[in-house]
Each structure stands twice: as structure tokens, then as C-alpha cells.
């Protein structure tokens, strides 16, 4: 049975009409000990049929060490959304529920190059000296989560210094433990710092400044 029903598929096709450049969804999966690898694989299979500019490339996490290293993958299922280059945009866990919008937005971001970041944010990112790793923790049922993910992904797209992960926390309970996450969205900045909620751009920027 299809994961994306006809209505959703039509919406997807309509949204992806705006694609300009080809996008590859690099999927890291394995056949054992992975919560939603199979489902994520099927989702990307169906999704990549929605537009000729979109394709999926499957990597076996357990034996494609080179790709695992190249994309810096440490848990599965994982998706790297890659265009002309790898911008550091990652999804860990299945992008289901409301996070499906985050995946579509990331595809369009990479494909069209259109970000919504303000001039101030861009200026700040232009002058970044140190690498920034953003991890946005979400649940699929959280309607406030996608904007937090999308903001982080836009920063990753704009700056080579920034990488940004969506992390579907119910699939990685050890990370919930490690970062004591009990509410979503939450974005950690380089491990130590974090912001709670879907905050406006300038709030995230000021937190990143604190973390530097």
C-alpha cells in the first residue's frame, strides 16, 4: 500500500513544480535494527517519483563506510538532501507527520536556492569563523516544529560553516536522555547550548552568538 495517498501526492507534485535544479536524497538505511528504515525507504521511493528532478540514492549503513563518512552519518534512518553540493542538511528519523513539510521545504530550498533569511542573519553567517552544528529535536505530531527545522536548514544551506539536523526524537530515545529533551521543538547548538520552541530568526542567531 502506498504511504502517500493520492491527495498528498497531488499536493507534493504541485509543490515540487517549483523545482529548478536536481536534488538527490541520499538515504542511509539497513535491513536490521532500525526502527523506521523500511518506511523511510518506501517514502523516498514514492516521493522521488513525484518529479523528474528528484532522485533517491540508497546507501547501506552497515557496509557503505565511505558514504557514511563522507556525509557524517551516525544514526539511521538518515537522509542528506543534496543539490549542487552537500549543504549539511540532514534528517534523522522518518520525516512523517508535520515534518513531511520540512522535507519538502528542504528539497525546494536546495533546488531553488531561495532562502528567507534576513540581511542581518546573512551578514552574521558570512562572518562565522567556527563550525556550527544545529540539531532540532521534533516529534511528528508537533505542529510548531517544522519552522524550527526549516530555519536551521536554511542556515545550513546559506553557510558552509553550518550543518543542521532534524532529529525525530522518539526514534532516538538515547538522545532525548543525553540532551534531556522533554519538549519539542528544541534546537541544540554545538552540543552545549540550546533554544526552546520555534523561535524567531534573530533569537536563534543571538543564541548561536552566545555559543560561539
Amino acid at each position: 500500500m502506498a504511504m502517500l495517498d493520492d491527495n498528498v501526492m497531488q499536493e507534493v507534485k504541485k509543490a515540487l513544480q517549483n523545482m529548478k535544479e536536481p536534488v538527490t536524497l541520499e538515504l542511509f538505511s539497513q535491513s536490521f535494527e532500525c526502527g523506521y528504515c523500511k518506511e523511510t525507504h518506501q517514502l523516498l521511493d514514492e516521493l522521488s517519483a513525484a518529479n523528474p528532478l528528484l532522485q533517491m540514492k540508497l546507501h547501506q549503513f552497515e557496509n557503505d563506510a565511505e558514504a557514511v563518512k563522507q556525509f557524517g552519518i551516525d544514526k539511521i534512518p538518515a537522509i542528506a538532501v543534496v543539490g549542487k553540493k552537500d549543504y549539511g542538511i540532514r534528517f534523522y528519523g522518518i520525516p512523517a507527520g508535520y515534518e513531511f513539510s520540512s522535507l519538502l521545504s528542504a528539497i525546494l530550498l536546495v533546488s531553488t536556492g531561495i532562502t528567507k533569511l534576513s540581511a542581518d542573519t546573512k551578514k552574521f553567517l558570512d562572518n562565522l569563523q567556527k563550525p556550527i552544528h544545529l540539531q532540532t529535536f521534533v516529534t511528528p505530531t508537533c505542529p510548531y516544529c517544522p519552522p524550527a527545522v526549516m530555519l536551521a536548514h536554511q542556515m545550513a544551506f546559506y553557510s558552509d560553516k553550518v550543518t543542521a539536523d532534524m532529529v525525530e526524537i522518539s526514534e532516538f530515545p538515547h538522545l532525548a536522555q543525553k540532551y534531556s529533551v522533554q519538549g519539542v521543538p528544541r534546537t541544540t547548538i554545538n552540543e552545549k547550548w540550546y533554544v526552546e520552541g520555534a523561535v524567531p530568526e534573530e533569537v536563534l542567531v543571538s543564541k548561536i552568538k552566545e555559543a560561539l
Partner: protein
Amino acid sequence: MFEFKLNMADTADAGVLYDLIIIGGGPAGLTAGLYAARYKLNTLMIEKALVPGGQLVATQWVENYPGFPEPVLGEKLAKDMEAQAKFYGLKVVQEDVLSVNLEGETKEINTAYNTWKARTVIIATGSSPRRLGIPGEQEYSGRGVSYCATCDGPFYPDKVVTVVGGGNSAFEEALFIAKYARKIHIVHRSNRYNADPILQERVAAEPKIELMPYHVVESIEFGGQQRYVKLKNVLSGLESSLDTDGIFIFIGTVPNTKLFEKQIELENGYVKSYADNSSSVEGVWVAGDVQAKTLRQVATAVGDGANAAHAVHKYLLHRR
């Protein structure tokens, strides 16, 4: 088992003067948008969230909106309202409004990205969850303190949870959390509950939920190994502690009026409304939870939205 929800923001032209800008995309704003679009007004909605519907999307089931004999998911109702309004031409941009200038012929709405201009404005900014204002609440927000059961309920499988409040939200959300948690205490300051009797019956029938009337939460103590809240019995004055893994707070809402408070007449913090949902400022209308009124429901919000859009339509007809 999986659902896939697509919500994509529109893009719009910030260079034009809109007939109407609606601030807020809950049921009131979406209904105003539907009506305005059908009146062929050049209408823009500015909504800070990506998913439309305001507080409706944090609600699991809606059972008292007419036309749905089976309970309807809040998010589904919101999405359908949006789809209907967009079908007739409503544009929705996802931006956070930072400031407004409501005076004069041309109203200005400033976001981080644009200055939007319109001849009329409908304020439909709704309300936000009220905070308890007790020690630990801010500190542990997102780390055990929550205001959204659909967001954070899944963090409590087989856990013990405290819910604060005695209204519909507290009871509905406690029933939702009961799908995950092993035990739920509903703490309320009296033994009079405002929740609809039908919800009270359901809570009474749920063995996981225990009512704790005549108690208030004094502080949230989530720093140590054993998490607990300090309670006070309002009758006896006795203090006690209640072990809990998380606390959900549903004690009503506060109107989102901060953007307007210096420019518009308020009544008990809500935007004062006059005939046809007009406000104290010419060219500005109000609809939904942010409006001073007695009943805040989806059913009343949609009526406000329709009224306000109709009034805008009439106003603009005489001024073209």
C-alpha cells in the same frame, strides 16, 4: 500508521497595497479570509506558524463544531478551512509580525522580512496559553513543563503526569495524555470544574486519571533525581509534594494584543469590539479569541471572521 502533512507557505508581493491584511490564521482569520477572497478583495493573511489554525492545531479532537457528527481532528478542520479559503484566492505568508502602524489610510505591518501595506486590517491574533507564574515553570519549560499535549504527550509513556486546570482544555488533554501515561493527576484550585459535563463524565470513567480538587501548584521541582511538584491544599493550607515526571498547564489563555496595545482600545486586555466587529481605530476590525467577548470557541470565531470580512467589504465599497 504514518501520516504525511504538507503545509507550504505562499509567497506574496510586498510592493502592492492590499485591500485587507488579516493578522492571524486561526478559525477567525481563515473565515475572514474565505469571505474576503470571495468578495474579491485583494487579501493577505500573515500567520506566524506554518500550520494554520492557531490553537485549533494543538487540540486533538473537536466535538462541538456543528456539521461533524463524528469528532473531527482540530488540525484537519484547520487545514480544510485554509484549503477552502485558498481555493478562493487567499494568500497566506508565514512571517512573525514585529510591529504595526494602524493609524491613517494606509496600515503598515512590519515583519522581519517585509513591510506589508493595506487599506484595512482584521486583527485575529487569538490567545496564548496562560502561565502559572510559579518557581520552576520557566526553568523547566520544555524539560518537563508543557502547554501542548499533542506535542509533548508522547514523552510520557508509562510515566506519571500532572495536569493543572479545570476547564475543557485540561480535561481533553488529560484524556489525550492518558493514551501514553500510566497515571495522571488533575490539580485544580476548587471542586467546581468548568469542563463540559460530557468531558467530566469521560474523565471520571478513565481509571488512570485522578482528580485533586482544592489544590494549587506552588513550585516545580525537577532538578533532582526524583521529580515532584509542591502542592498546597487551599482549604487546609497543608503543603505536600506530588511525584511527577512532567506537568501540563491548561489554565486558560491570554490574548495576543502586545502588538496593538498602544494603538487600540482594549477591554480587560482583549481588543474592544464595536458594531460589526469594528475596533476603536478606523479601518481596523477584530475577530476571534483576541476580541473582548464571553465565549471563545471555534463556532464563535468563524462568526466573528465572517462579520468582520463583510464589514470590511462594505467599508471598501464606499471608498473606492
